[in-house]
């Protein structure tokens, strides 16, 4: 039975490998699901809920379970591309039903009209609004992610969502292939003046 020798050798080899793998899977087991952390790193952390989940981490967990990667408008095209690269999926268009990608915005409370009800403070997912009951509320611009969640609760509708102004400090060079004369005109769009 010449076949016996190879069978024994291969079985032995397979058993050793199997044992090593089993050992490694127990000893080097990772806590939690690291892919969720990696996905979360790529999300913009706006915590706006436009994807249908209450925050970015839940959406990251959903993506790890197989949810579509194109539900995040603040992340935009760049975000979808980064997620597609990480998870080796196809790049798809942003799901319009979740919202559209816009230039970054911030919340701005018109202080004359604020009644100090704290509803917006409770709504803000990153605690970017300073204030207390019956006292003035104001948005800390550097902390605001532009998620929009403070606007619906406000009973007097005193919150604006202007675009962040392009100044000579945060201005970006355009892609060379896109440079054209009409872009020179677009460059000077200014919205609400903010001191950032």
């Amino acid at each position, binding site marked *: 039975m010449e076949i016996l020798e190879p069978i024994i050798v291969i079985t032995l080899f397979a058993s050793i490998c199997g044992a090593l793998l089993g050992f490694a899977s127990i000893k080097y087991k990772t806590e939690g699901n690291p892919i969720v952390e990696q996905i979360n790193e790529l999300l*913009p*952390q706006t*915590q706006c809920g436009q994807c249908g989940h209450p925050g*970015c981490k839940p959406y990251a967990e959903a993506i790890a379970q197989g949810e579509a990667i194109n539900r995040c408008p603040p992340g935009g095209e760049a975000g979808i591309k980064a997620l597609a690269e990480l998870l080796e999926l196809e790049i798809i268009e942003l799901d319009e039903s979740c919202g559209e990608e816009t230039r970054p915005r911030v919340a701005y409370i018109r202080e004359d009209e604020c009644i100090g009800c704290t509803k917006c403070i409770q709504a803000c997912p990153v605690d970017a609004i300073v204030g207390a009951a019956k006292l003035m509320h104001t948005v800390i611009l550097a902390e605001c*992610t532009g998620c929009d969640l403070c606007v619906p609760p406000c009973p007097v509708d005193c919150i604006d969502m202007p675009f962040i102004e392009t*100044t*000579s*400090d945060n201005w*970006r060079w355009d892609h060379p292939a896109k440079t*054209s004369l009409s872009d020179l005109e677009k460059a000077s769009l200014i919205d609400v003046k903010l001191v950032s």
Partner: protein
Amino acid sequence: MSDLANETQIIKTSDIVKHTKYKMPGGIHPEEYKTLSNQSPIRILSKANQLTIALSNSSHLNGELQVKIGEVICKGQTLFASSEESMTNNTHSPCNGKVLSIDKLNTGHPSGLPLAAIRIEQAIKQNSDTEKQRSHQNNQQNESWVNISPQDIINRIHRAGIVGLGGAAFPTHIKLKTSLGKVGTLIVNAMECEPYITCDDKLLQEKSSEILQGALITAKAVGAIKILFGIEDNKPEAINCLKKSISNLIDSNLNNHDNKNYTLPKIEIVIAKTKYPSGGEKQLIQLLTGLEVPQGKYPAELGMLVQNVATLYAINQAINHNENLTQRLVTITGDSVPQPGNYWIQFGTPIFHIIESLKIDCHNISHAVFGGPLMGNAISDFNVPTQKSTNCIIFDSNKKLINNNREASHSACIRCGECEFVCPVSLLPQQLFWFSQSEQWEQLEKQDLFDCIECGACTYVCPSKIPLVGYYRYAKSEIKYLNTKHKKSELAKKRFENRENRLARIKAEREEKRKKTAEARKLAAQNKEQDPDGKKSAIQAALDRVKNKKEEQS
């Protein structure tokens, strides 16, 4: 160079003038176009009716306005006083006149965005009294700079509003302060390597002793003991004038025994072969000394300080003549200029005034180039004024100058590698281009994208006419933007997590409290069962009190 050898001096020429033995890698030799503007003497441009003085290139202004709208001002008066640490610099009025407005205007920033600027109406008719410049500095006018402390020199430079006049406009006082005590060699940048520009050349020819004085003052301010003048070999007259001034200085110093507490630094002129971009700060240091500034660090790490000749001239005017910086020498050149040359131009002079004054033919020109053709800025709005950083304006009807950039779609990169042969920083521009095209930001940082000095040598040689520097600028600003965005999202994540924790904690506390209350209620209900009137517990409580008293007494 033969006339140098014929001079007989006490000081040997070879002691002062040397040729560098070091080399700069890469580099190109574009057509120089210097003879367009360096054949005529320096002239003064006529005064404009209105000046637009830019206050800063940033939207952050750190300092205080010193004038109001409608105020009558005089030449040299401080318009804006910046704080010492800020990058904004002191700005002064170049003329007598009136403040028309304080506004946001297009002052020539590459973005085209409006920035803070003061518009002044210039009083053209002036009598000799008002011509006198009112000095807002202290009155140590007659004291020789030799006796002023380095810190004082630096303060005066700050107050005079002096910035680097080689093109970058970095506040000089900050540069000097960070070099204090570290610097042994002052390198004077007289290379002027970019085509068309000749203002440093002419300044050296006509004002070499003032520049030399400026160099000595700066050397004193930082404690340098050696001064190297770096200059290209296409400026023989400038080299001659400088050499004469240095010889005179050394002669007079040998004969002058008054200043015993001052030692003259060792001064040398080092000549390098003409090549672009040998005038870049880091490239110049490599060319003159063979040393390389470590990545991410400044020349002060190597004990060196680099200053442009125009800056040194301004320093001399500030320290020795108490003049604030209000004008500079600008090369006006190009084939549309009937009289190209170098002109003293007040800051804030709009382009249209220069065009009218010099009768420049503009009907073929869509953009004027501020600076040189390789690193300058193309400006289409002729209301834009000259600023401290404007060392040259090119009015070229040559279509080649601008039209190449309009070509939004260029040929494919054929990977010829010409760009890699000419990069002065020894980068791989081809790789930078491929990664910029495919937006691989991490790879770009690994290829040292941020070491690129944007000199344009690679773009100059590209046979496919790819706007390489345009891609690098785009990539750099995208990477910076993404880094800022990432930091912001990290912060938002932390704040969100903190908030979640806080809410969870509050919830847990409430839960605790509710539990405790519920338990207490339960306990009370139990007690009520066993002791409906509460008499039993009252008796027990009384007995406990007596027991405790007894224990205390014993």
